[in-house]
């Protein structure tokens, strides 16, 4: 009885949140236009109230999932009383309605955060930002209230739920959506700031300084989300791949590419007061790609294993919403952006020039992923021709674009602002270059068939990792002053510089992991009977036998393999194939053990009916570097986020004449 009350209470809170959001979207905006202080003042309490109401609704849904209240339709659709409690909890967002509610919770959470921490923002700007944020909120809240109410009842109450998609019953995927959404939705802040700036008709360094931390935080979360998803596909899909170019993966990768470009172009606005209209456009596009990703996942226009139940009516609603949000903001952009005055001029060879190159390459890469994702659909819609785009397309387009980008990552930070001397930078990087080429040459000789891609990958990895450390070494005057003084200088260095070095070196680690993995991984597929063994890369895998095991809501065949090397035991691997109760689906649970320089990976397949089982073994060298490298990038992002400039916040907008303060900071950071 009490549970029923909570669900209705949650529904009521959701309606209240919608009403508050509607007020928040209109009143502060008018207030800011007409300069009416009490109307402007509505923004902050409304943002808090909206967040509180959404949080109540979310808590109500989560509670219904935890106690398996099957009278709530979302619970009935995607939960089961025998499920492990953690998956009951994470089942809250393992369905269409619940994941939308999580999206809104995060959206209103970011709004509340701007209200709480944005106290140094000019009140009119804050009011406009919160109003834009609330407009997005109104769209999503009406979507959920009118088409996908998560707290709708089922009558009569079913005795048992239908169960959660088995692929989602996994710790990696359980916590994947919250991070992904923190990233997606986090970019709504950059969007709201961009639209607010267009309404105000002004973009200046102070604006960029407010936007950057929000973008950086969103970027960090999105990176965690994508990395988690990649790790999940590595061990759960039983295939040992880390990226499949699946439409849903691409949907999260496109905002990441655009967001990375935005992070870099915002630096130019902040330091040099130029590239303004481009940065505003990137902010709009990054969030637009997040929305497009949602559309792709929700509408079912593209087939993917990740898609939840789809429904054309929902697709139409999201498409309408996309047209209003993206079309509206781009119209505003077309009207107002030409008026944005550019500040500092710069030569093509300069820090600004390098960041522009970064933006061009990232934007092109993003466009190629977008094209590959939508091409089958676009061509079919326009001409009726049918084509398939698989990984071959992305290997051919995305790969070549990354080579110049990665090569430039090391050079960019070596260039001063305004005008630079490329030869001077080359001079400072010559040892790194020689080292990278040497290592690459050795790689080229030792790979089977002298693999060019492997050599290029290794050269770029060394170039990135060692090259990113050069600005660091120069700043602390490594080897040219006593070591203790270098340490002191390192401690006094701005955290944003540390963050940059970590992020760029992390990227090098990712590339190194990918290159080594693709070049040297070995695999073996065979059928083994108990007692038989197979060997791979010096490791011997002996099949000890297979048996049935029961989980809370699945039965599994588990094979046990003991692994030895030179007669000495290394480990035991126990991969499973699981069949879930109440669905025809089986999932593979690979068994993975890290050893020196890589992972041992085993998966078990079908029985051959004569006592033998299909088994696959991989040696995956350096594979953990891919995810560790990504985590180093994230750590770099958080370190940069903790920089004094971000913590203290921007100085008052009119405090310093434009340029004066900025120039001092820029030269201080050289």
């Amino acid at each position: 009885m009490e549970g029923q009350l909570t669900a209705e209470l949650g529904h009521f809170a959701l309606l209240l949140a919608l009403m508050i959001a509607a007020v928040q979207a209109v009143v502060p905006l008018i207030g800011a236009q007409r300069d009416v202080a009490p109307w402007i003042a509505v923004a902050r309490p409304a943002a808090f109230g909206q967040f509180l109401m959404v949080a109540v609704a979310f808590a109500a849904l989560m509670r219904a999932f935890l106690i398996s209240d099957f009278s709530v339709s979302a619970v009935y659709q995607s939960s089961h009383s025998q499920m492990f409690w953690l998956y009951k909890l994470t089942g809250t967002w393992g369905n269409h309605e619940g994941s939308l509610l999580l999206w809104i919770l995060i959206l209103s959470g970011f709004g509340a955060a701007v209200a709480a921490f944005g106290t140094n923002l000019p009140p009119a700007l804050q009011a406009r930002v919160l109003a834009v944020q609330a407009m997005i909120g109104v769209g999503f809240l009406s979507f959920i209230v009118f088409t996908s109410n998560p707290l709708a009842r089922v009558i009569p109450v079913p005795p048992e739920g239908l169960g959660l998609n088995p692929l989602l019953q996994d710790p990696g995927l359980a916590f994947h959506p919250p991070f992904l959404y923190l990233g997606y939705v986090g970019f709504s802040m950059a969007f709201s700031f961009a639209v607010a700036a267009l309404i105000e008709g002004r973009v200046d360094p102070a604006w960029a300084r407010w936007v950057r931390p929000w973008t950086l935080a969103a970027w960090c979360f999105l990176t965690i989300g994508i990395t988690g998803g990649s790790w999940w596909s590595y061990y759960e899909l039983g295939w040992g791949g880390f990226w499949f170019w699946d439409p849903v993966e691409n949907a999260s990768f496109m905002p990441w590419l655009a967001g990375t470009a935005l992070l870099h172009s915002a630096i130019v606005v902040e330091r040099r007061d130029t590239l303004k209209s481009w940065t505003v456009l990137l902010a709009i596009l990054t969030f637009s790609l997040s929305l497009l990703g949602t559309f792709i996942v929700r509408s079912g226009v593209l087939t993917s294993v990740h898609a939840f139940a789809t429904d054309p009516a929902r697709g139409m609603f999201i498409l309408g919403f996309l047209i209003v949000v993206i079309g509206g903001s781009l119209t505003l952009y077309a009207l107002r952006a030409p008026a944005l005055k550019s500040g500092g001029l710069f030569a093509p060879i300069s820090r600004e020039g390098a960041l522009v190159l970064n933006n061009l390459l990232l934007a092109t890469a993003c466009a190629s992923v977008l094209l590959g994702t939508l091409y089958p659909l676009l061509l079919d819609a326009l001409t009726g021709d049918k084509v398939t785009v698989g990984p071959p397309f992305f290997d051919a387009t995305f790969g070549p674009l990354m080579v110049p980008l990665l090569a430039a990552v090391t050079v960019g930070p070596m260039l001063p602002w305004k005008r630079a001397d490329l030869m001077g930078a080359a001079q400072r990087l010559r040892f790194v270059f020689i080292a990278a080429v040497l290592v690459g040459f050795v790689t080229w000789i030792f790979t089977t068939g002298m693999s060019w891609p492997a050599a290029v990958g290794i050269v770029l990895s060394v170039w990135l990792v060692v090259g990113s450390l050069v600005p660091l070494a120069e700043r602390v005057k490594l080897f040219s002053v006593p070591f203790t003084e270098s340490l002191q200088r390192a401690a006094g260095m701005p955290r944003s510089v540390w963050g940059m070095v970590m992020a760029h070196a992390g990227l090098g680690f990712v590339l190194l992991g990918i290159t080594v993995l693709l070049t040297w991984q070995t695999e073996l597929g065979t059928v083994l009977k108990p007692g038989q063994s197979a060997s791979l890369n010096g490791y011997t895998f002996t099949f000890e036998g297979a048996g049935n095991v029961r989980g809370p809501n699945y039965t599994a065949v588990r094979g046990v393999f003991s692994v030895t090397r030179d007669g000495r035991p290394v480990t035991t691997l126990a991969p499973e194939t699981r069949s879930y109760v109440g669905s025809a689906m089986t999932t593979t649970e690979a068994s993975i053990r890290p050893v020196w320089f890589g992972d041992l990976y085993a998966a078990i397949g079908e029985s051959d009916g004569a006592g033998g089982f299909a088994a696959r073994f991989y040696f995956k060298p350096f594979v953990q570097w891919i995810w560790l490298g990504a985590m180093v990038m994230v750590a770099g992002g958080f370190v940069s986020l903790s920089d004094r400039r971000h913590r203290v916040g921007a100085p008052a907008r009119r405090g310093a004449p434009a340029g004066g303060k900025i120039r001092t900071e820029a030269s201080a950071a050289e």
Partner: protein
Amino acid sequence: MRPAFLVPLIIFGLVAVALGIGLGLRPAEIPSALIGQPVPTFALPGVPSTAPGLSSADLKGQVSIVNVFASWCIPCREEHPLWMDVAKSGSVVLYGLNYKDTPENAAQWLQTYGNPFKRVGGDFGGRVGIDFGVYGVPETFVIDGNGVIRMKHIGPIDRAALDNEILPKVRELQAAAQAAAKAQ
């Protein structure tokens, strides 16, 4: 207003129109121009150590299903247990068309998840897939005893599609073939 600033809006407009049309298309229901046409002529090698190769001649003589799959295709995994069930039941002959894949990956994929196919054609370059009008992977064709394509399903099949659309079509074609044999 300068025209350059309108470019993003115009591009988005085109994308939105295409997405709108795409929504209306319901990709799983697109009729194929090849329905009612004989299968294209081809002869493909097999996938190592799992199944013999496939040619257009194999598709004549009895009603069969051709399933287009690839190891890199994630939705293929989802529908695979259903094909294993069909193979166990023995109600119809299943053939596989392995699309734009490598022989090793395809072989291992079949070893891991089981091989429901009597024969598998390794269409590693994707040429035969183009002749079949393959739009995406997975795709499924129902072919009658004369080697004529009778039905096409785009995207992964589920239990409902199998029981309500594909298998009834197979039974209808099998019954028609039997009736024709009796009449002769």
